[in-house]
């Protein structure tokens, strides 16, 4: 299986270099980046509202444009109140570096912070993003 993917990657690299990661790039998509990763995400449905359940569609690419290995996890909490959600989001792997996390619900208005935890063999990293929920 691993060999098989390797072969595909090799073939692709000679033509359009890793075009599959980095396709979540609508103007309304949110961007996060670090030295090692580029992360794009969007809320489904669009826009955050108190006490409404939603999902997060996201994509994680490595700096060389390839898809992240493994499955990152996502959580959210209210930094000012010192508490998180009452629900745990479940991340489903969609392929090409894309994932869908379902089961979010922000139960208070105020500042919420998403935490994306990326765990790869070569190390782990956390990317965060703040949102005001009204």
């Amino acid at each position, binding site marked *: 299986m691993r060999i098989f993917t390797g072969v595909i990657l090799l073939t692709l690299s000679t033509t359009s270099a890793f075009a599959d990661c980095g396709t979540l790039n609508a103007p309304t998509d949110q961007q996060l980046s670090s030295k090692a990763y580029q992360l794009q995400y969007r809320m489904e449905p669009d826009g955050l509202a108190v*006490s409404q*359940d939603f999902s997060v569609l996201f994509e994680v690419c490595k700096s060389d444009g390839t898809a992240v290995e493994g499955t990152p996890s996502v959580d959210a909490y209210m930094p000012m*109140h*010192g508490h998180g959600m*009452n629900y745990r989001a479940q991340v489903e792997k969609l392929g090409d570096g894309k994932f869908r996390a379902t089961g979010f*619900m922000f139960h208070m208005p*105020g500042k919420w912070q998403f935490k994306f935890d990326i765990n790869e063999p070569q190390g782990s990293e956390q990317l965060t993003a703040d949102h005001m929920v009204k």
Partner: protein
Amino acid sequence: MSGPRQAVLVLLVCGMIGQVEAAGAEVLAFDEAERQLIESHGPWPPAPRHDPSNRVSGNPDAIELGRHLYFDAELSIDGSMSCATCHIPKTGLGDGLATGKGREQLSRNTPHLFNLAYSRWYGWGGGADSLWAQSIRPIMAPLEMAATPTHVVTRIKDQPLLSCLYQKTFGSPVAGHGEQEGLVNAAKSLAAFQETMVTGRTSFDAFRDALLAGDSNSADQYPVEAQRGLKLFVGKGQCSLCHFGPQFTNGEFGDVGIPHFHGKGVVDKGRYGGIQNLQKTPYSLAGPFSDDGTEKTARKTRHVTLQDRNWGEFKTPSLRNVAETAPYMHNGSLPTLDAVVRHYSEIDEARLHVDGEKILKPLHLSVQETGDLVAFLKSLSAPLVQPINEDMTAAECSPGHTNQRP
């Protein structure tokens, strides 16, 4: 102008100002943040909501069946009590007691049943995820109606009106259904009836709409004390954080420092116990009795997580009609709204969870502020849009007769 006439005029003007003030003709200035939160407490009434997990939600025959079951003491094992024994229409759909009275003293306060179609969780610990599941609990609870599925099904089968309404609603006589199914169907009818208990527009709702529309002539009908109380509610008091939205609840759970020990060493686990119940009950939305074929309604149940902080957390009550539903809190320990506001005002932070929410701190409200907040809470009352019909003789059920959609 001569002296005496001037004096009369001055008197007249003073008299008028006096009158105007008595009517409270003043609209306080609300800043953008305050207006936004005030807006979020409406609009009211909300659009009717039918429960996808209950196929007879909104069905007029089911509502009529639910109404008869609600008042039927024979649903209990020994004919001793009905839903209406504890959720009394005249006393805010509660019982006015600190904690409920079943076969013995119960440990929790009997909540009202207003606007429950819009709730996410039911019971003080949220041990049920639908109104129909919550309606099964008291029927089976040993200290309450203490019935069995067999008893419920037999009662419906033997009582001609219930039996006729059941067949009309579910398309088959109750005898043709299994006992579990019969019990769940009875509960779904009870839920359909309770969904009709929607409260009307309050003086707060009129004020909110007028304020947003910039209609100061209507807005000034709302007493200025209530306006000051509202300012505290959305501002310094931070009450809107949990008592959020048109229902004045975010539908979730919190710890506001009400002790959850009752009796000798007995602890009410609150939300912790509620989640444990959800994980084991066959009557959850993730179980076989939900009528929702999609993932949607069960999502909350599948994703909710058991956390240490859930110990001693209780459901944030809706504050619509709160003035009609004393006493307060999960254990009924606070007798009046004044006592509730004073509790928040002097809250004992040591009683709150250590890793809990850094939201509640003593507000040290003045006597006037306390009165203002109470005046605001009292402005959230309105009678049911559709009064409860307690007349059981007016019922009709025949194959040709259809109950009217309310």
